[in-house]
């Protein structure tokens, strides 16, 4: 990361050309290590660099507008939202005693970039913390693909013997990616069907999942299937651990599955029934069959689900290992008042 930050001089052309935050965000996401909230924070720092706001009020307004734009165009707004809110809160609370506003903007950009660099170390911190809970010879169940879970498992493999079951995580099938990476590293791992979670739960010592966001209630938002896994783990009395970096803590409070911002009317909707004329019987007197494609299935199904806090045993984060109640106390302490 550069230590010198240069602000582009506000010439007429760039003043007229609106800074497009969405491509900046996508560019940041190209880096494998950067997750969506961090990419959002970095995109917002770029917005500050290119902004010609002269007062704090204008700057905060520009940031809020930028965040709205990102939310509108990104497909998965929840974790992105968490990053945007964190950065906007940081900017608002930043002590602005420097006389020169340009200096302040430069400082904010620097702080933003510094945070992003530091945030990349969070996964290591969480891995170190979680490895303490993994006993030698553990059988672990995980879901889909999560970078922080990968780092934890690879770190645990350096010191102990573990074996891993990974769910396939349809329809995107990211669980296969996890199993391939683990096998390449020498960790015994198998892909299991999403429907076989209850079948395998008795053999497992604990469940470890990553997160899209950890919410105000202490609950978890993660790839669809996590809630199912948590319910089955509770029924089989197995611990359910979630790994989450602190920039994924979000002030959202879903009252139910359908109260999530990602919920839209197409999910779980019934396709319009074909009318009698269009399903006219052919000459043999048989109705033409209805074909349902994999694409239609992915469209009608959710990407993420909400796991209630009473199903989660612990949340491991860079701020420490928290109970779900502890998460909400941390969030209230950070954002309330």
């Amino acid at each position, binding site marked *: 990361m550069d230590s010198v930050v240069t602000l582009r001089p506000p010439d007429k052309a760039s003043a007229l050309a609106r800074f497009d935050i969405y491509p900046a965000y996508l560019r940041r996401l190209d880096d494998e290590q950067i997750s969506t909230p961090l990419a959002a924070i970095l995109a917002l720092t770029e917005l500050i660099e290119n902004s010609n706001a002269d007062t704090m009020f204008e700057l905060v307004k520009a940031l809020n507008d930028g965040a709205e734009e990102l939310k509108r165009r990104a497909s998965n707004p929840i974790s992105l939202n968490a990053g945007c809110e964190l950065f906007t809160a940081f900017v608002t609370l930043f002590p602005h005693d420097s006389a020169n506003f340009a200096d302040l903007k430069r400082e904010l950009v620097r702080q933003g970039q510094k945070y992003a660099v530091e945030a990349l170390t969070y996964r290591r911190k969480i891995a170190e913390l979680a490895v303490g809970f993994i006993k030698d010879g553990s059988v672990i169940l995980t879901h889909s693909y999560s970078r922080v879970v990968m780092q934890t498992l690879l770190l645990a493999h350096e010191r102990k013997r573990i074996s891993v079951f990974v769910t396939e995580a349809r329809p995107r099938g990211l669980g296969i990616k996890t199993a391939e990476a683990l096998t390449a590293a020498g960790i015994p791992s198998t892909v299991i069907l999403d429907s076989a979670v209850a079948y395998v739960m008795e053999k497992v010592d604990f469940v470890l999942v990553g997160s899209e966001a950890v919410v105000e*209630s202490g609950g978890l938002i993660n790839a669809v299937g996590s809630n199912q896994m948590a319910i089955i783990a509770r029924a089989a009395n197995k611990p359910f651990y979630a790994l989450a970096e602190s920039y994924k803590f979000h002030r959202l409070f879903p009252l139910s599955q359908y109260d999530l911002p990602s919920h839209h009317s197409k999910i779980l909707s019934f396709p319009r029934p074909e009318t009698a004329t269009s399903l006219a019987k052919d000459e043999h007197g048989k109705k033409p069959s209805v074909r349902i494609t994999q694409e239609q299935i992915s469209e009608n199904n959710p990407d993420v689900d909400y796991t209630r806090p009473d199903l989660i045993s612990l949340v491991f984060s860079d701020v420490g290992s928290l109970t779900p109640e502890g998460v909400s106390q941390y969030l209230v302490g950070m954002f309330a008042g």
Partner: protein
Amino acid sequence: MDSKNIPRGLKIFSHFGLPKPVGHTVKGDIHPAIIRLGLLFSEFRICGANARAIATLTAFKKVIQDYTTPAQSSLSRHLVTHLSPQITHLVAARPMSVTMGNAIRQLKLEISKMDFDMVEQEAKNSLCEKIDNYIRDRIIFADEVIQDLAGKKIKDGDIILAFARSSIVEKVLLRAHEEGKKFSVIVVDSPPLLEGCKALLTTLTNTSPNPIPCTYALLPALPSLLTEVTTVLLGAHALFSNGAVYSRAGTALVAMMAKGHGVPVVVCCETYKFSEGVMVDGFGKNELAPSKITRSTGDSINVTPSTNLEILNPLYDLTPPTFITAVVTEVGLIPPSSISSIPLALGKSTL
């Protein structure tokens, strides 16, 4: 003396003493505003935690303005002693609510912090201003924020269940309706006060331009209605540190049944209603409705106490935190387990 005709008294809840008779006895030098307030309280004309707190503070403003510091004493020391008999008179009319207690405690704190050298009229004006600010910030503005936050959880097509009458739930529903959301309300009510019918239902069905579609039912009908309900909105008299909600009798039943049916239970509560204690049941602290109120339901069956029959009407009950999904306060939506961290977040050491 015929011993058969003496009522034996309540066996349980007898530690609250008999329900206060509606008395007009005034002990000591009580300000007329306080006498009037005491009468309104004992007749249940002013009902509800917010209403009582605002009425008490408004009456105290009059008392403070009419007060003169005796010679050889200062306002900050003597005013509190002057207020004590007034408070006792109010408590004799009807036991103090948690909101009144918190407000009075704050008032006493402000009085003790008053500058020794301040001119008396200035001090009195400053106190009245502080009282106004307290009402404005912690009740009126807090309600505005809660209306916003809770309103976001109401979507088109929702069926909301409300129990009895809570001033803040009423405001939330009216605001959501003003914003154009299309929802319907089920008002569940319970005797003896029947606040749902007399107050909440009339307000909701009289909204313009088009009234909110409402269903009215008594508490025993609850199980058959819960399958239709999207969210349950409840008000609170007080919220304790362990997350338990102290509210109108019947609230605990509604919350428990809703939880059993997987319906989210949302409690709307301003932060000034928080109490630092911990409560685990409705027996330690409660209030019994006086018999005058019990008999005002106007039924043909008039139950009168006799040697073998006593009427028991507790006004409040306690909802354990496990039945509550979320609490809406002016600092945001919080799970009931995090209530104790709110004072820290607000930068205060106490509530």
